[in-house]
């Protein structure tokens, strides 16, 4: 272990090996924290029941409800209840957590929220730990220097039963963002810019490590936005080495280490950074100062352009031609000024307090354009409470936007928050796939500031002209 320089991922990987990989077998990797939700866990619990297996480490498992639950209020002023099959998923999660002793933050609990928002805000996300969840955006937790990645339902069952996964070590891919982001350019623009550059399969098989001065200057919430969309670049995990910003964020959170344990933990975490000369399988340098506010024009997160850019020529690329056709766009058109129907501000990418503050800064004293529906969905009950304490909910309501209960909502349209066929949305979420936000719906991915500007103008706009 001593002697040769190791990367951040090497260090986490090696400290979690129950058994190392060989040519014949993958490594048995220990999982520190397993997050579960109502949509990808029921079949895994069914497997445990069928094999008469317990949850091995219920205390390392945390459950919440986020994907399928409604975020609107019912007639009684409380969150509307899930109905039909979604209600069955909610009930199944309650039953499974009760029967297997798993802690659950259900709807109605003041710690409920999107699974990747509550982990960090509760202080469960620790630097140097391994974190998995049956959700591809588990990469979010990498912002703390954790090795965090999404898994399928079979693997959810493996972790429930054994607290371990069979894994091959991912290759490493360092992306250095040099310089600083320009004013009006956000963390969302940074990651959309990277994905536009390397493509949605650009980091397949790799864990990304985000480095450089522009990353160091980001807040924890901004780092989470960046790491969140690692999967949109094909990487299962994306990490930022922990620093003072990380420790300051975690300090005092409910599940963060306390007193002497805290000092010991920080001392440990300080050793996690990739060693000088640590060998990455791939390296890329990006000039952060050259990045601009980004927006996607197509049906893949890699189809991004500067907000002031024009729709590219697809050439002979069938996928890009199909994307243009689905989006109803022509090559050479500017997106600026294009009419939109819906604005969605939320999702595990951009539903934290700083995201809501950014959106509110644009919306304060302004109105959502006539004919535009604007949804603001806080990421968690804690975010909602803090936003309301700052009066952000009033800013949104007075502008004519809807202020919702926490959940995944229109990011994936599993509940009743959906685009109608043909509608255009500017969304702060992470995926613009065909029908992702509702059958036939068409999504432009952008930052909270760009989304808020679009809400006010009723068309795609450059928020830098509105501050």
């Amino acid at each position, binding site marked *: 272990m001593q002697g040769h320089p190791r990367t951040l991922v090497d260090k986490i990987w090696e400290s979690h090996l129950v058994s190392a990989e060989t040519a*014949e077998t993958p490594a048995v990797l220990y999982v520190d924290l397993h997050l579960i939700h109502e949509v990808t866990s029921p079949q895994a619990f069914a497997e445990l029941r069928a094999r008469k297996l317990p949850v091995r480490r219920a205390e390392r498992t945390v459950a919440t409800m986020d994907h399928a639950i409604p975020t609107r209020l019912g007639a009684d002023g409380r969150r509307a209840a899930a109905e039909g099959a979604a209600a069955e998923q909610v009930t199944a999660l309650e039953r499974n957590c009760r029967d297997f002793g798993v802690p659950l933050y259900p709807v109605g609990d003041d710690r409920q929220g999107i699974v990747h928002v509550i982990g960090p805000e509760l202080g469960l996300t620790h630097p140097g730990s391994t974190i998995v969840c049956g959700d591809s955006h588990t990469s979010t937790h990498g912002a703390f220097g954790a090795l965090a990645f999404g898994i399928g339902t079979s693997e959810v069952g493996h972790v429930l039963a054994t607290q371990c996964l069979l894994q091959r070590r991912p290759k490493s891919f360092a992306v250095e963002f040099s310089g600083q982001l320009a004013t009006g350019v956000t963390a969302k623009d940074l990651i959309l810019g990277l994905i536009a550059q390397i493509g949605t399969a650009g980091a397949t098989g790799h864990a990304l490590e985000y480095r450089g001065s522009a990353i160091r200057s980001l807040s924890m919430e901004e780092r989470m936005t960046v790491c969140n969309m690692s999967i949109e670049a094909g990487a299962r995990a994306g990490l930022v080495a922990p620093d003072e910003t990380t420790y300051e964020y975690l300090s005092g959170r409910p599940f963060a280490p306390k007193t002497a344990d805290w000092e010991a933990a920080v001392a440990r975490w300080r050793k996690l950074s990739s060693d000088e000369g640590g060998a990455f399988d791939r390296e890329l340098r990006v000039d952060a100062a050259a990045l601009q506010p980004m927006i996607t024009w197509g049906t893949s997160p890699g189809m991004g352009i500067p907000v002031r850019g024009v729709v590219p020529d697809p050439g002979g690329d069938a996928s890009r031609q199909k994307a243009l056709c689905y989006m109803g766009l022509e090559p050479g058109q500017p997106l600026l000024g294009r009419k939109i129907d819906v604005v969605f501000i939320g999702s595990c990418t951009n539903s934290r307090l700083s995201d809501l503050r950014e959106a509110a800064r644009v919306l304060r004293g302004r109105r959502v354009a006539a004919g535009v529906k604007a949804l603001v969905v806080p990421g968690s009950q804690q975010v909602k409470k803090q936003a309301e304490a700052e009066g952000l909910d009033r800013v949104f309501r007075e502008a004519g936007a809807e202020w919702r209960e926490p959940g995944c909502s229109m990011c994936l349209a599993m509940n009743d928050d959906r685009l109608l066929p043909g509608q255009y949305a500017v969304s702060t979420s992470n995926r613009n796939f065909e029908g992702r936000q509702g059958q036939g719906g068409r999504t432009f991915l952008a930052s909270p500031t760009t989304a808020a500007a679009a809400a006010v103008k009723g068309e795609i706009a450059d928020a830098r002209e509105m501050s």
Partner: protein
Amino acid sequence: MSFRGAHPRNVTRNPLFRRVRFPSVESAFGLADSLARLPFRPGRLLFQGTPMKPISVIRSHSVVLPMDNVDTDQIIPARFLVTTSRDGLGQGLFADWRFDAFGRPRPDFVLNRPEARGASVLVAGRNFGCGSSREHAVWALQACGFEAVVSTAFADIFRANALKNGLLPVQVDEATQADLSAAPGAPVVIDVAAGTLSFGEQSSSFPLEPFARYCLLNGLDELSFLLSREAEITAFEAAAGPVPWRSS
């Protein structure tokens, strides 16, 4: 003995929507014979697994879906994930491409054409299965009779999910993918042990993680292997100490 509700690996080769047939445990679990043929150290790898249908050779004509970056939202839209079961997901497969807004099959979509009937090998464009971690994408493909997907690249989570259910991700080079795409309906033979895909006069090899290959050939699942490592896991936990957080 039947095991209704077992892994959808036991889906028979069939056109879209045919029901699942479950083989007997005995016929699905030809462990001893297969072990003898493998270059592994059996003492190290032998573990009592949940019986799943071993997969050695897949023979089928192909159906070609010539799209790059087919994401899991296209394979099965999120509205079909509102279920607590692995079964019954076939209706959701490529739902927004297969059916119009009124639920009528779109005749021009490749999977709706008569020649797609009975195909168990899907030839797709680059970067198949990107996006969400939903294993429902694999279950939906299997529910419609698919046993293998061919692409130049697979998203990491999709590949892992596929292998855990016995859906074979066959990664080929650009030239092979282009040739296969140009010959929809071509008879294809995929040999799991050899790691080869053959059609016409051509044969090309594809990578397959050795442990996954072993599990596929022997009808074994990873969970059983992990459970067999109980002593090592316990030792790791003892050395690592208690959970690093305390509720407050």
